[in-house]
């Protein structure tokens, strides 16, 4: 048995390591200071897909990502780790999309890709933490979903068994393929890049990237067919522009504010025995503790 697997992945700013230079003096986010990375839970998702490919030879793992032209990095990163191919969905009409407009565009691209047995994505992306795109894509494709997956335990006879990690426990569920699975960060980490695959794919570029390159590169391109990465616009996937980007988004951002906390007047102590004892006596006396 071989499986056709699509992995949804997103390039995100690394909001987990927000250093002091990540906020500008005026309090806005300095995007340039945040590196663009493969969304962490999407890497967990990719690993689940690659494990199925190991288990069922002949299976294919295809990445799908939506973003600006530089999000082609996501496809290359996936190829370095063992994916078979990928599609970058990029178009100005996608700009400003909320989760619903994003899932509309992704589902149109999936329809264009065609047949699949399984779609796997991370549970949520760290720039928005919404966990909405996976279930919304499933709904638009008319298939079911298994969210919060920690492990795809088995696939047999058209049925998938998945262990879900919930807030206060675990659930083992069984579902009929095709369906969509979203994977938690508690799932195994993704395998590292493979040196041979890096050699093979490091010059793989999309059409837009090739146009920006020198002639040497173009010549190299013509001699190696594996170097072409697929790039699709909204028109390529027959997407209705009205349902994409800002115009396809029911939610609107009314206001963005920087987070400001009311500073308190604080009393500073050192860690000497005397000062700690005085503090504990005070807390006991005013019944804060005890």
């Amino acid at each position, binding site marked *: 048995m071989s499986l056709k697997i699509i992995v949804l992945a997103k390039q995100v700013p690394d909001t987990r390591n927000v250093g002091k230079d990540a906020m500008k003096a005026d309090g806005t986010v300095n995007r340039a200071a945040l590196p663009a990375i493969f969304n962490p839970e999407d890497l967990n998702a990719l690993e689940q897909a690659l494990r199925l490919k190991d288990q069922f030879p002949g299976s294919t793992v295809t990445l799908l990502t939506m973003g600006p032209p530089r999000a082609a990095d996501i496809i290359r990163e996936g190829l370095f780790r063992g994916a078979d191919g990928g599609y970058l969905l990029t178009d100005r009409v996608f700009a400003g999309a909320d989760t619903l407009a994003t899932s509309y565009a992704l589902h149109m691209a999936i329809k264009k890709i065609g047949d699949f047995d399984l779609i796997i994505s991370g549970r949520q992306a760290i720039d928005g933490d*919404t966990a909405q795109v996976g*279930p919304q894509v499933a709904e638009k494709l008319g298939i079911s979903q298994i969210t919060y997956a920690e492990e795809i335990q088995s696939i047999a006879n058209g049925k998938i068994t998945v262990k879900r990690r919930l807030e206060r426990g675990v659930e083992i569920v069984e579902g009929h393929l095709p369906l969509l699975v979203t994977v938690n960060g508690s799932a195994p980490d993704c395998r590292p890049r493979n040196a041979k695959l890096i050699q093979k794919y490091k010059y793989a570029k999309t059409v837009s990237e090739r146009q920006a390159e020198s002639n040497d590169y173009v010549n190299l391109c013509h001699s190696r067919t594996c170097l072409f990465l697929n790039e699709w616009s909204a028109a390529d996937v027959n997407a209705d522009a009205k349902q994409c980007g800002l115009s396809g988004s029911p939610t609107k951002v*009314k206001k963005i504010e920087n987070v400001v906390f009311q500073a308190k007047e604080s009393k500073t102590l050192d860690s000497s025995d005397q000062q700690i004892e005085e503090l504990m006596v005070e807390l006991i006396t005013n019944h804060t503790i005890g």
Partner: protein
Amino acid sequence: MNNLFVYLEIENGKVEDVSLELLTKGRTLATRLNCRLEAVAVGQSLETIGEQVFPYGVDVLHLFDDARLYPYTSLPHTSILVKLFEAEKPQIAFMGATSIGRDLGPRVSSALFSGLTADCTALEIGDHEEKKEGKTYTDLLYQIRPAFGGNIVATIVNPDNRPQMATVREGVMKKEILDANYQGKTVSYDVKKYISDADFVVSVIERHIEASKVNIKGAPIIVAGGYGMGSKENFGLLYDLANTIGAEVGASRAAVDAGFAEHERQIGQTGVTVRPKLYIACGISGQIQHIAGMQDASMIIAINNDPNAPINAIADYVITGEAETVIPKMIKYYKKNSK
């Protein structure tokens, strides 16, 4: 029509706190909007749901009782909500930002083409102007949530699509009974008309859900540790202090990510929001996402070796020093003076 709906999460016949918190918030907003507060219960053996939720000011309870509807699976619950919402046309719908609400909400919003905002930290009613189109909207739901890893706060509105949907984490809103004798009415539905066999493509084979062992949300005193505690072993000191003074142990996201503490102890925007009378922050630098979850503590003590740690700005007492030296001293002098 045009009322405010809350989807109830039910575990073993008991309505979860997150839903009761949403009912409390929903009641306030419904009164402000002069509309009804309605609750939806989907599951099996729902006889006692009414007595559990009416005291929170629920005007109408919609009951969908069928053995196949518990435990939760995505499609049957989606089908029910979509059909109910198509008929009832709510203006607002709330769900818990839980593994159930975050599975169900996006599907329902996709089917109805309505906007959904995840993990809101505040919900308000207000007006909105679309300057480009010259349109003004009155009494929209302001869905306020942290964005960009908690570094900014965004206010989201859904001007044209209904229902305006939002999810909220457990512990973010306060749970408060309105009136123990509040009278609401119950409407029971013929479930067969709302679901089909095709909705049961996913089934639950095994389920191990434990009652929460940790009650950080209700603890009057919290001793919380951050990445600065350095190791899981050092977190043991926090338990020593907590056991001595009768507190619960909490942790920052960085400490949980590093494996120093379990996820259910996480405090902050992506964890639990707490309002204890005393919060002792040990080795926590004070990222916005953490501070947002504990700033309402009555008193804050920050123990940190960095005199410029952001958390110091909101602390009542700042102890500059290593938590490993300070905590044993706190235990020692508490024991000496408490008798």
